[in-house]
């Protein structure tokens, strides 16, 4: 069974928000659009985004980590947002596991957003329907886009290539990783990859080698001839 999903590599995500606005520009004019913005040029602008990056700090100075954490619908294998929907507007596609909202059925009751433990759903305050990531379902199956472009907008945009897209059930797929809050039993399809640290170990013998150029120029540290030596104190 196919389960399409994103794997987000926190090891290389620099928090640039390319995924945030590339998603917005594709989807606002796409099948799931428009994505409304309230007070766009006024105080407290707020709008519908399928994808946001949260940045937070872990640890205390100087052992601080700054984490950029992109968040969107995780397309759970057991999505709690689906059974709570009173109109059947929230549904999970059998063919690829994508969780979608049928705007024509949605009454904006927000039950789904209460049920979602990840805070991934946003009510479009203008249209009064619930909106969320579609995995760019209108791109990936498009018959008009070139083959290479049939990928989610955020995946194509991501400069460090931190967003991988594929079938999480396919053992040959590039996508795997860890899941968010597994204790909720939602089996999120989207996965995350952790930070990894590269260190360099220097051994002392690497610092005093035979090919040290100081030998050529006669500067390898040696005591001056005036300093005391054994010759000064003993004749054996």
């Amino acid at each position: 069974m196919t389960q399409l999903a994103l794997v987000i590599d926190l090891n290389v995500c620099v928090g640039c928000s390319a995924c945030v606005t590339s998603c917005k520009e594709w989807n606002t004019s796409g099948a799931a659009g428009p994505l409304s913005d309230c007070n766009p040029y006024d105080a407290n602008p707020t709008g519908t985004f399928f994808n946001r990056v949260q940045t937070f700090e872990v640890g205390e100075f100087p052992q601080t980590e700054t984490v950029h954490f992109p968040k969107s619908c995780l397309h759970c294998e057991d999505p709690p947002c689906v059974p709570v929907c009173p109109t059947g507007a929230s549904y999970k596609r059998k063919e690829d596991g994508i969780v979608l909202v049928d705007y024509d059925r949605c009454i904006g009751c927000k039950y789904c957003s209460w049920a979602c433990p990840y805070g991934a759903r946003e009510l479009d305050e203008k249209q009064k329907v619930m909106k969320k990531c579609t995995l760019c379902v209108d791109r990936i199956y498009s018959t008009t886009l070139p083959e290479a472009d049939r990928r989610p907008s955020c995946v194509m945009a991501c400069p460090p290539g931190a967003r991988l897209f594929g079938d999480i059930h396919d053992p040959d797929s590039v996508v795997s990783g860890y899941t968010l809050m597994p204790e909720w039993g939602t089996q999120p399809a989207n996965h995350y990859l952790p930070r990894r640290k590269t260190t360099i170990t220097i051994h002392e013998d690497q610092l005093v080698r035979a090919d040290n150029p100081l030998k050529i120029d006669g500067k390898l540290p040696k005591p001056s001839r005036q300093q005391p030596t054994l010759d000064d104190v003993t004749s054996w």
Partner: protein
Amino acid sequence: MSSTPLHDPLAEPVSGAKTETYTTTCYMCACRCGIRVHLRDGEVRYIDGNPAHPLNKGVICAKGSSGIMKQYSPARLAQPLLRKPGAERGAGDFEAISWEQAFALLAERLGKIRATDPKKFALFTGRDQMQALTGLFARQFGTPNYAAHGGFCSVNMAAGMIYTIGGSFWEFGGPDLERARMFIMIGTAEDHHSNPLKIAIAKFKRNGGKFISINPVRTGYSAIADEWVPIKPGTDGALLLALIHEIIAMGLYDREFLARYTNAGELVNLDAVHDEFGMFVRSEVPKEEGCFDPQNKLWWDRVSDRPVITHAEGADPYLFGEFKLADGTPVKPAFQLLQERVRDYTPDWAAEITGIPAATIHRLAYEMGVTARDQKVVLPISWTDSWGKEHDTVTGNPVAFHAMRGLAAHSNGFHTIRALAILMSLLGTIDRPGGFRHKAPFPRPIPPCAKTPDTPLAIRPNTPLDGMPLGWPAEPDDLFVHEDGSPVRIDKAFSWEHPLAVHGLMHNVITNAWRGDPYPIDTLLIFMANMAWNSTMNTVEVRKMLNDKDAQGAHKIPFLVVCDAFESEMTSFADLILPDTTYLERYDVMSMLDRPISEFDGPVDAIRVPIFPPKGECKPFQEVLVELGSRLKLPAFVKKDGTRKFRDYPDFIVNYETEPGSGIGFLSGWRGKNGEKSLSGEPNPRQLEMYAANNCIHHYELPLSYQYMRNWNKGYLEWSQRNRITRYADPIQIHLYSEVLQSFRLAAQGKGISRKPPEHLRKRVETFFDPLPFYYEPLESQATDRHKYPLAAITQRPMAMYHSWDSQNAWLRQIHAHNYLFVNPGTAKAAGIADGGWMWIESQWGKVRCMCRYSEAVEPETVWTWNAIGKSAGAWNLAPNANESQLGFLLNPVISEELPASNGGTQSNSDPITGQAAWFDVRVRIYPVKPGEPEQTSPQFEPMKPYPGTRPFLGDWLAYFAGSKK
């Protein structure tokens, strides 16, 4: 309930819509990625990265993805505007005029200036990627008063590196992360280059390289660094000098590289009474004088134990020691002098200054040195060096660095960056795999050949300037000064105050013009620079200067012209506003004559093409210059009979040649009658078409043997000469020791026959023109009571915003609608400031009320904020109560553009060598607001109002949907 959705999520939302796709070049920042603009029924459907573009390879950033909201922004200007008679500058009272009126007015005014005293016209531009045209216009006009924004951006990075290795970061070169094993990023550098660096860092990390970030703040790319080394701002020079100390002390330098490719082994004259003291000993007078290093210097040969001409067959220089020439002249190799210089710059010494533990500095030096030495990259690429030696391989030492404004924006930045370039050279990483690599047209000779005039006589009525407005001084006689040593330029660039101000000092133009020092001007034309807000130091006072009048009631800066696409803060001070277009409505060139988008493997230039006609009456700034140039009959813009030479800017791009028949023009691709020639060739009438059909780029890939070691690569240098990219094909030796600097010092010491500095600047020139890098506390810090102002304050640029440009962008402003001052919790608590609380940040120059955000990702003696998020009320056509002006803030009001000078006057708050604006030197204190103070940013300014022709956004909702509504 039916399981079939009512709404088909795959259906094309608009059936039968007309779709089109065009390729062009992004301009949401200066990175210049390739983009595809997709239209639906004539409106922008989406913009994505062009996969066929060498720079971004299909990716795109948050800004680039939000181009739609720039194109349709309500802050866009739509027609030329003239300040209403009697209205104050800054009040924003304008009336619309026609372009014909605007041109007539400008042509008359500028014509009079040109016929009398051309220097009374000053042209300064926020953009430095249009210099091929703007620089030409200024020169043809005859004014020396021209520069782009480099002086307040990162000129120290350009000058410090180019005066040392003949190339620099960003457009001119960069880290080769494809092959590096270790990458060290120092200071804020996120914005130059943006997407290419993100792509490269991710790949580098995935390949298991170690990424170290040295920065007072851990944000941006530093977040994913394997190691974060917090450092106190302005102390990077101390760290770099201590690293050099360790690398030399442990013998971790690349001796072979230093001996052959740098001036490490060259003998310096140490006869203290000699006029040539501190200069290299020459074996003979060069046959030809030119802009290159003659190969006439000496080594002390280890093999024969006597002085020989450098690179003599079989010779190998001593790098250490002291020797006496046959005539008794005492000499030392330059490397010996460097070693003596860094002797006391120990890790323990640097630890005190930088706040980095000495053990960390030792370890960093060892990691760099051992990685460079033991993980060599050897490529089977044969090449021939400048001395005729053939090499079968290219060797790289895989340690790469990157830095930009974090190092540059300090008054000690030039020497800091020289130290960085020297460290990179000691590790043997220059134009080698895994290290630093050049991008064409670099490397250039040290210094590059372009020169300004050296006398005010070069400025004559109705005559082009006899020389370039900007250049690269090689010695005191190259300075652009009067007989008495006083400055010729309004910004005092290339004077004894800032001799190597190779990008000018835009940050002092308004203050100098207002004060009439060195002289008053008549007309100031500013293109795309927000000098009444975030692009100026001392924002509050500069705004007053812009509107200040003399006793007769006339403005001290008589006429102010601003060209911009948006209703920026600066536009409100203009007498005349010229509405520019967006990047989707114009032709542009990323030219080899300016700053192209070259790759490591060879030259690349690019164009922008218009996808849409200009909005309303908007006109690209280039068209304005071509029109004015024609009306003013500037020689390059008219035929012999005085009639107009170029129909418009596209015509100019295609047909302009640097000299008649030179075959060199703005673009290097598809030259020749039928587009069959590259780099040079006669104009091709279909050139722009051919660019447009080829992703708007021209990429000339060099043969592999020309791609490395280009400072000394005979094949490359001769190729470069044949194609007239350089005049000389001589090797470009790395200047560990800088004779250029020493020549200025000698002048200050009264030696030799060159010009001498005026008395009040003698000590300053002697101190700072040190041929070897040294560390000094930033000048503002030296002039500050550090006890009263204990903290450093700096800014970083958010990746989703470009300067002040994007607050009018409905999507991007939702990511950064207002900013906080980030303070280490320990520091904030000690000052009694709560997380999220209102506070004051105050320097000796001014103060700002803002909100505090605790952060563990900033070193305790530094506070910082995002740059240019704060806006003036009503600016950029935002509502007067928008978050940007009420909660957001600028740091600029606490930063001064001047410091007290030794002669009792003032001097630019800049690097004393290059004039680089010392933004990051400011020292501050912080304290909480008093009870009852308003919860609002201070200072506030009179809200700006919409101009004629701009359309404020009506209603509460924006629901963008391209093309016909569904």
